[in-house]
């Protein structure tokens, strides 16, 4: 889908493309709800420390942290090869060769998953809201970046916040 967008936008100006890419995600409100939890504490440092530990447990490397504004950024790399995708691509190459042309087999090789986490005091003054947003960039077998997407699976966020709550000894409330 994104790749298609990229191909279609070949003749657009940078400003046009920025207007498309810069648009908020379609389901921004649902996404915010999915990515946010409230905790009964005013100490955002406790939550950030717990979040750093949770992310490390999950294999992430912390790449940026700013306690003053409650921000934590982490990433991890993971293989993204699926045998089905590889087989289909090789099949396509053989099919193209039989017709006398060449198809360069392309599949996902690696993915970098990134998470941005921000802890914000809630205006009621008794809680802290944590928002974690995951996205990933896929690199293909030719070593090129070719796909990027926000991760929207509710289970992923559910699991992350469960682990975070357990690590901080606090309960995570949905907003």
């Amino acid at each position, binding site marked *: 889908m*994104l790749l298609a967008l990229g191909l279609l936008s070949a003749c657009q100006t*940078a*400003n046009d*493309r*920025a*207007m498309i*890419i*810069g*648009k*908020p*995600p379609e389901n*921004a409100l649902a996404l*915010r709800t999915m*990515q946010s939890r409230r905790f009964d504490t005013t100490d955002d440092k406790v939550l950030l420390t717990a979040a750093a530990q949770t992310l490390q447990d999950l294999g992430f490397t912390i790449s*940026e942290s*700013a306690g*003053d*504004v*409650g*921000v934590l*950024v982490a*990433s991890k790399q993971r293989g993204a090869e699926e045998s089905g995708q590889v087989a289909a691509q090789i099949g396509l190459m053989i099919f193209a060769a039989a017709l006398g042309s060449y198809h360069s087999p392309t599949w996902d090789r690696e993915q*970098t998953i*990134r*998470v*941005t986490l*921000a802890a*914000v005091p809630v205006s009621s003054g008794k809680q802290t809201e944590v*928002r974690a*947003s995951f*996205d990933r*960039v896929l690199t293909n077998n030719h070593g*090129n*970046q070719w796909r*990027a*997407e*926000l991760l929207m699976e509710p289970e992923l966020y559910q699991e992350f916040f469960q682990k975070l709550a357990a690590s901080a000894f606090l309960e995570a409330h949905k907003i």
Partner: protein
Amino acid sequence: MMNATFARAALLGVLAVTLAACQTSNKTSNLVLSTKSPVELRAIQARAFDTTDRTRTLRAVVATLQDLGYGIEKIEPSVGTVSAVKLASLRMTATVYPRGQTQTAVRANALLFGPGIETQVDDPLFYQQLFFEPLSKAMFLSALQVDGSEDKEPAPAPADTSVKKP
């Protein structure tokens, strides 16, 4: 015999050139800056808010970027800068700085990545609709146009090309 060898060498040469044409260099990406004047760019990229709370403003910038689907890349609260990337193709850098005695200003700058090229975004609509309007909502304050009279802006940060693309 001689002719065949020559023909083969020539074919190889042509092939090499043809193949090279499809290559894009990831290492050296060219930066295309806006042709608009600095004054014009500032009017497009900067807004002032009636608050002196810089930390709160920076937090609001972070929340807005997150809402818009950006991932934070770098943040430096003491200087008031934040850099974020959306879908590996759009980088937004924002600076939060005091403006006069009663205001805080936010200056944003966006770069769009293409194959081997980075282009500065200078569409006023982009900054207004896809950054300052949501930021203004997050701040519960209106984003005011800056006229440049009271600005004590730090030197505009040069486009950071040393940072590895995500």
